[in-house]
């Protein structure tokens, strides 16, 4: 900031003296220079306050602001400071004069609302070990194929995609799969391709029944179909239920033109 310059030194004034025009101009220039640039002492040291009109700011080299109403001086509050690492990016209340960066933010209000369209909470496979923590959400598709005890069942590649939504360890699936060809299928019928492996807990706790229907089967089917998941696996085993009798493996009931329809949820590995 360039120093304001003025020439001459005003003389010593006496009470009641009428200042000359040149003295008035000199005083005015001096005051303006002081306000604009800060007063300089004999040593050239800049005093603590500078009113910098060029940049519309007041600069305090030290100290702080105080306001007076003529009898009481009030010290202005200090500016807010940021405490902690900025890498975490979330700021929370620290004190009346500080904002604290947090890696785990706690919100104590009643409603946390996200209002911008297209946004939301993103939880992408965070793998928390805390059972109270929602650590994953995902939507997508999976591709089904069939496996049989013997022979084969071919899924029409135009109708072989299912959908899934994963919320934590719960995987919700749906899909309708058209059969385009068979070759003497028999024995077990498995629908392969689940988007996540089934969890592996003790005492079969992870097993889920998946709502399953088989349409346009051959005439041998004599009961409703049922799908079941298996620990650690990525398939649905499909059986034909026949009253109180043991379940029947359903591959032999599938025909060209049949469809396998599933919907439900299962407990994922993680």
């Amino acid at each position, binding site marked *: 900031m360039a120093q304001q310059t003025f020439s001459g030194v005003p003389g010593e004034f006496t009470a009641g003296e009428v200042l000359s025009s040149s003295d008035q101009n000199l005083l005015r220039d001096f005051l303006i220079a002081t306000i604009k640039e800060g007063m300089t002492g004999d040593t050239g040291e800049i005093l603590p306050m500078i009113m910098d009109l060029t940049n519309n700011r007041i600069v305090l080299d030290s100290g702080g602001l105080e306001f007076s109403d003529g009898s009481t001086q009030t010290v202005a509050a200090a500016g807010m400071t940021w405490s902690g690492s900025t890498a975490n990016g979330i700021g929370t209340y620290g004190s009346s004069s500080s904002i604290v960066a947090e890696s785990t933010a706690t919100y104590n209000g009643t409603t946390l609302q996200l209002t911008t369209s297209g946004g939301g909470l993103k939880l992408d496979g965070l793998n928390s070990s805390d059972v109270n923590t929602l650590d994953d959400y995902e939507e997508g*598709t999976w*591709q089904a194929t069939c496996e049989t005890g013997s022979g084969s069942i071919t899924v029409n590649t135009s109708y072989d995609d299912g959908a*899934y939504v994963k919320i934590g360890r719960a995987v919700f699936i749906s899909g309708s799969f058209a059969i385009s060809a068979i070759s003497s299928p028999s024995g077990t019928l498995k629908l392969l391709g689940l988007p996540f492996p089934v969890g592996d807990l003790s005492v079969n706790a992870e097993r889920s029944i998946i709502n399953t229907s088989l349409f346009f089967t051959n005439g041998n089917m004599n009961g409703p179909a049922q799908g079941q998941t*298996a620990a650690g696996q990525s398939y649905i085993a499909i059986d034909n239920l026949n009253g109180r009798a043991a379940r029947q493996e359903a591959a032999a009931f599938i025909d060209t033109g049949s469809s396998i329809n599933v919907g439900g949820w299962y407990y994922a590995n993680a």
Partner: protein
Amino acid sequence: MALTKTVEVDRIEVLQLGQLQVRTATIVVDDGAELARSFHRQVLNPGDDTTGQSDRVAAVAAATWTDAVVADWNAWVAEQEAARAAGQ
């Protein structure tokens, strides 16, 4: 406006039993700004054929599926199947 669509394997996870959990992302970008991303999932079990998989998936499978891992997996599956056949 230059729309581009790319398909890439964006996640390969190796599970305890050796399965590979593979996520394929389809990404639509307009002049550098991502407009949409969708996912497709598949699971590869130890010993599965990796023909048609991406080079990275095949490499992870080759590194993970040692003979011992595949043998353990097959034994575990056989145990599961036997239990299922027994109605358990």
